[in-house]
């Protein structure tokens, strides 16, 4: 703000105070005056962006926060079964269930049913996520609870022999925690146990870690494919005379403007086993009619369709960077004796890095959260982590697990962003 070379005019003592600071015409220190002037313009700027800020807060930041909270907070059990929750807190989860615990369960179920008949099943649904069979157990017990008399433990055993199985008591203890790591544990294939430790999920139910890895690999693969395919196109675009370049540009943008769904379903028509591509292969004799290639409803289909759909996000930033590289640089390199390849690789290519970086980051982050395309053409092995987040939101109704998966995905993206900033530097990014 202050210019170091500026020398105050010391001959006019009236414009400096005792300590030598500059004063404005009305006698206030100049620094203060400047701060005031800046504050006004800052406030005006803030007011101008305030509507957008509020909108982003209300529609973006707060919902994300709420969802993240849902991944660690679940008060279904503790709010409906308060007595049981406090009794279970004292239980060490290894000793035999006590009469006190049984009495609390019966009492809570009777009370919950009085408020609404749906409450006991809600509890059952929550416990069922930890151990199968809890829904029918809670339904049955709730039905019989009003007629039960002490000793309640024996009555529970009589009502359903599942109560003799400590697994159900342990599951209740897990469910009774309001702030719980159970969902984040489940999102990385671990199981949160009643005594507070973690264990691996049984092997035939492990899925999410490998899915996260797969999602990152696929996104990386799609990004690479986009660079390889997009770079030459961008190069061509930026070196053609503007008439042809504009025409080509429209060919790049046309799919970009077409609905995602239309493009994805077009790939289905192209790639399916009775589709255009396979028909051509059979016709020119690459394969026989009963051995057509499986190009869709698998990972191949997902990668092909995602690469095509994300290609413009790679071409456009690279193109805009290439447009800004003065042709004189390459000419100068050549006049100094560089071969075509050296001039390209040592002079031209480094200048395009900001565009490749921007395109790469854009494509990667879009790909890592991709949902519709894998859902439509992914079949069984082409599904990515977003498809499972959607599955838990829409089908299994386990919103807490969906929130935990989403939270992990968000952290992954932030880590990648940070890595990119460390390696390439975010200031080097050029979006066009």
């Amino acid at each position, binding site marked *: 703000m202050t210019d170091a070379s500026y020398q105050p005019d010391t001959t006019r003592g009236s414009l400096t105070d005792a300590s030598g600071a500059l004063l404005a015409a009305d006698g206030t220190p100049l620094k203060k005056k400047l701060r005031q002037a800046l504050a006004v313009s800052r406030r005006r700027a803030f007011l101008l962006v305030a509507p957008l800020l509020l909108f982003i807060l209300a529609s973006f930041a707060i919902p994300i926060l709420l969802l993240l909270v849902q991944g660690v907070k679940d008060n279904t059990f503790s709010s409906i079964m308060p007595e049981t929750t406090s009794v279970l807190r004292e239980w060490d989860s290894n000793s035999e269930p006590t009469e006190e615990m049984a009495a609390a369960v019966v009492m809570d179920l009777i009370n919950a049913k009085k408020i*609404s*008949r*749906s*409450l006991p*099943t*809600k509890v*059952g*649904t929550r416990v*069922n*996520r930890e151990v*199968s*069979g*809890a*829904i*029918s157990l809670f*339904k049955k017990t709730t039905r019989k609870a009003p007629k039960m008399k002490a000793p309640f433990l024996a009555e529970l055993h009589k009502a359903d022999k599942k109560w003799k199985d400590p697994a159900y008591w342990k599951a209740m203890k897990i469910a009774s925690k309001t702030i719980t790591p159970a969902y984040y544990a489940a999102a990385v294939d671990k199981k949160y146990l009643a005594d507070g430790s973690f264990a691996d999920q049984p092997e*035939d*139910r*492990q*899925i999410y870690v*490998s*899915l996260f890895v*797969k999602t990152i690999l696929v996104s990386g693969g799609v990004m690479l494919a986009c660079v390889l395919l997009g770079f030459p196109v961008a190069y061509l675009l930026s070196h053609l005379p503007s008439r042809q370049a504009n025409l080509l540009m429209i060919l790049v943008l046309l799919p970009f403007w077409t609905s995602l769904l239309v493009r994805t379903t077009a790939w289905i028509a192209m790639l*399916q*086993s*009775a589709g255009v591509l396979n028909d051509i292969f059979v016709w020119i004799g690459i394969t026989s009619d009963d051995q057509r290639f499986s190009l869709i*409803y698998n990972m191949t289909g997902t990668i092909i369709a995602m690469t095509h759909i994300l290609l413009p996000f790679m071409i456009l930033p690279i193109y805009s960077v290439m447009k800004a590289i003065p042709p004189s640089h390459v000419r100068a390199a050549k006049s100094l004796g560089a071969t075509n390849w050296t001039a390209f690789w040592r002079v031209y290519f480094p200048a395009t890095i900001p565009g490749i970086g921007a395109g790469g980051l854009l494509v990667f982050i879009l790909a890592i959260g991709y949902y519709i395309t894998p859902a439509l053409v992914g*079949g*069984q*092995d082409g*599904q990515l982590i977003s498809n*499972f987040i959607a*599955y838990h*939101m*829409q*089908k*299994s*109704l*386990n919103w807490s697990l969906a929130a935990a998966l989403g939270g992990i995905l968000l952290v992954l993206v932030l880590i990648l962003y940070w890595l990119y900033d460390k390696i390439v530097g975010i200031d080097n990014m050029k979006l066009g």
Partner: protein
Amino acid sequence: MKRAILLAAASGIALTGSAYAADTITVVSWGGAYTKSQVEAYHKPWMAKTGNKIVSEDYNGGLAEVKAQVEAGNVTWDIVDVELSDAIRGCDEGLLEEIDHSVLPDAPDGTPATEDFIGLALHDCAVANIVWSTIYAYDGSKYNAFERPRSMADFFNTKKFPGKRGLRKSPKANLEMALVADGVAAADVYDVLSTSEGVDRAFAKLDSIKDDVVWWEAGAQPPQLLADGEVKMTTAYNGRIFNAMASEGKPFEIVWDGQVFDVDLWAIPKGAPNKKAALDFLAFSTDTQRLADQAAWISYGPARKSSAPLVGAYNSDPDLAMGPHMPTAPGNFMNAIANGFEFWADNQDELNERFNAWLAS
């Protein structure tokens, strides 16, 4: 639009003397040929009778949308066509309105509604309209007359019948069918499936065809997969295959062995905006005549016993009697499994997880 509604309402009142105000209700169902059958058999006559309007929406099943609407306190659906397991779960979790069965009309011969509906049909929060079935079908033109698949075991036998298979992307019905194919009698399926060895056995059977499976999610997909030649055989809802056969002339054949049958029910989301009109629609559409009418449009069995004798021929082909195409026809019903909704309520979390892990591995 508004004027049209008013006019329709006015004429409705004038014609029938009905005292209804013109309501617009949103009816949600599964789309495609199934929704069409409901529009023809239920929606049109009800709109003509009451002067009310119906907005028809499609969905792919599940309680997610209902739950989202009820929990957000912004219910826009008035009545939804749900599967049995969802009807029971939705009722238990307080997502659906309870329905007073006394609004349901009696059968024409005076049999009370509670006795006229078949066993699975009446629930606290839902009333069934049809019996449907998950079967498997193949394209008859791809097989010669002597080497056709006939049993559930043939579906899982890719040596004898090579080619891709279509399956619904859900463990429901698939695990049951796998066990039947593995030699378990239909009546014992859920007993076997309740043991962990039984689950392993079902997954092992599914695993034997995993590399050949194309997974589908919406009911309209399997007939398309068959027609495109994308699969040689596919599981499907029987009505969808029938419609492709009857109205589009596709050479499909249904194999009924090991069918998993279920009911579809009307349910009203908690806090539906036009609950009264929705309830009226529910009672109207599940009366004896309407259920029989629907069978002229799709091969799903009516949920009332009194409707069965009234079931006639396909709407566009008077020679095509619907009776033999119903899941409940005696010849089709020999080795049928009733969907075990209680089993699925208890085990779906765990089995879905295992199914997903199995799929992705």
